[in-house]
């Protein structure tokens, strides 16, 4: 964990997001899907940024991308600017090596956090269940790896299945041997119930879910980012922000 300067090396539209590329040689070895950095983007509270791509580093490398909505303060950054970062922080998604069928579940707003997990690996089949209100909000499917099996759900039926994540989740979760979820935490209890009904004795962290409340310090010092779990609370910044779905309350 370090506090360091990142150089903004690229900012481009990647509808419905803005792609910001940061060069941070110090951070790279520790970044992983679901882990994050806290960026000083001008407010009193730092802003968590989750890597949306983690390419294999080359000589002099150390870049990663974040995808943010156009209204996000990060979208206003300009190439050449420097941003103070603290990172890498937190416990991210952990996909066991033995996984053969990986299910990713995301609402469109949270999709960038899961994008690093869409990279193909030999022997691993990955399916993405992606939800949005309407087709116009969706991330272009052609931007995703071709071997990724994509299931789209829209509330108005303008693309894919008409309905909600919960409609398709039961079948997919029975197929998967690991599930990584980044969505509105309000649907997590229902997802957890489906996992309990459809899986016999799921392994610890079989289903992992992102919960990211405002994180003030990032190191567990301020106790601000409490997340209710079975038997008490945990901190999103150090125990999470990725938790076992079944322990969340």
């Amino acid at each position, binding site marked *: 964990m370090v506090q360091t300067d990142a150089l903004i090396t690229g900012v481009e539209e990647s509808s419905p997001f803005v792609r910001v590329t940061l060069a941070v040689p110090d951070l790279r070895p520790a970044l992983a899907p679901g882990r994050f950095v806290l960026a000083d983007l001008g*407010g009193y509270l730092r802003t968590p940024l989750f890597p949306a791509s983690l390419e294999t580093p080359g000589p002099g490398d150390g870049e990663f991308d974040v995808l943010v909505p156009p209204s996000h303060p990060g979208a206003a950054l300009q190439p050449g600017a420097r941003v103070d970062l603290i990172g890498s922080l937190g416990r991210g998604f952990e996909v066991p090596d033995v996984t053969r069928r990986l299910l990713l579940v995301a609402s469109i707003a949270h999709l960038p956090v899961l994008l690093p997990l869409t990279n193909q690996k030999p022997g691993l089949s990955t399916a993405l269940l992606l939800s949005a209100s309407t087709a116009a909000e969706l991330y272009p499917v052609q931007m995703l790896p071709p071997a990724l099996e994509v299931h789209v759900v829209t509330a108005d039926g303008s693309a894919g299945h008409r309905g909600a994540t919960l409609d398709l989740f039961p079948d997919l979760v029975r197929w998967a041997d690991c599930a990584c979820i980044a969505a509105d935490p309000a649907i997590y209890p229902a997802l957890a119930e489906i996992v309990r009904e459809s899986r016999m004795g799921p392994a610890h962290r079989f289903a992992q879910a992102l919960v990211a409340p405002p994180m003030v310090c990032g190191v567990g010092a301020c106790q601000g980012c409490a997340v209710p779990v079975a038997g008490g609370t945990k901190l999103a910044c150090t125990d999470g922000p990725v938790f076992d779905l079944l322990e969340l309350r």
Partner: protein
Amino acid sequence: MTAIQLAPEHKTGLTLSNPVMPAAGCFGLGLEYDRLVEVEALGAVVVGPITAAPRQGAAPPRVLAVPGGVLLHTGLANPGIAAVMRRYSRTWVRCTVPVIAHVAGTSPDEAVSCCQRLSGIEAIAGIELGLPDIPISLNPIGPKSGLSDFLDDVVTIIQAARVAASQPLIVRLPMAYADALCEAAVESGANALTIIAPPRGTAWHKPSEQFITGGLHGPLVLPLALRALRRVAERVPVPLIGCGGIHSAEDGRAFLRAGAVAIQIGGAIWHDPACLACIARRLSPQVGPD
């Protein structure tokens, strides 16, 4: 080098080589920040708050950004004095600067329980006692206000902590009654006073549609804290530690000019952990005034 003495009347004293330390509630229980903060540049570290029994703390949401800072309501979340000592004692021993433990004095029993456990622990150089703020239900005006009884209860907490603690006792006073209680705190045995605890505020949390009441941190607190410090400095002879909204060496100097011998830095650590050592270097007694 000019040392800073926070407890000249105490048998062990509490000597700092630098006036800068983190504020309780901002730095964790051990050295959560040790990879981001150059601890050896500081005068001391303040760990806690610590309560007698484990506390899960407040239900989320606990954090709300407000203009000029942040409102934080943790509900004194911590694993309790026994677990804290088990998990962090070795870390405190390794610390290269004095460690001050912040005890949440919610009642005399709580203060005594924590201070007794910490008493005689060599790695703890001093105890800072946090005190309850005025309850929102208490009407502070009028002869039957209940304020007088409340302040009497607070004095009892200080007295209990003083008896139980073997180390120097620093009492951190809330802004709401720093004026009213500073002399009684000193008479009750406080070796030093921290002025002030984060003032309480309330804000509407739109996503959860509820009010959040908690401690205010950020630059908005500085003028309030500075005013409280100046008033207390006129009235008591003990060393004072200024705390509230300090984000730069210049902010810290204002507190030192107003009568503090040391300062605590709170929310600024979260925003910029590196600022702690930077401010410490600029306020080092070896550097002298700008």
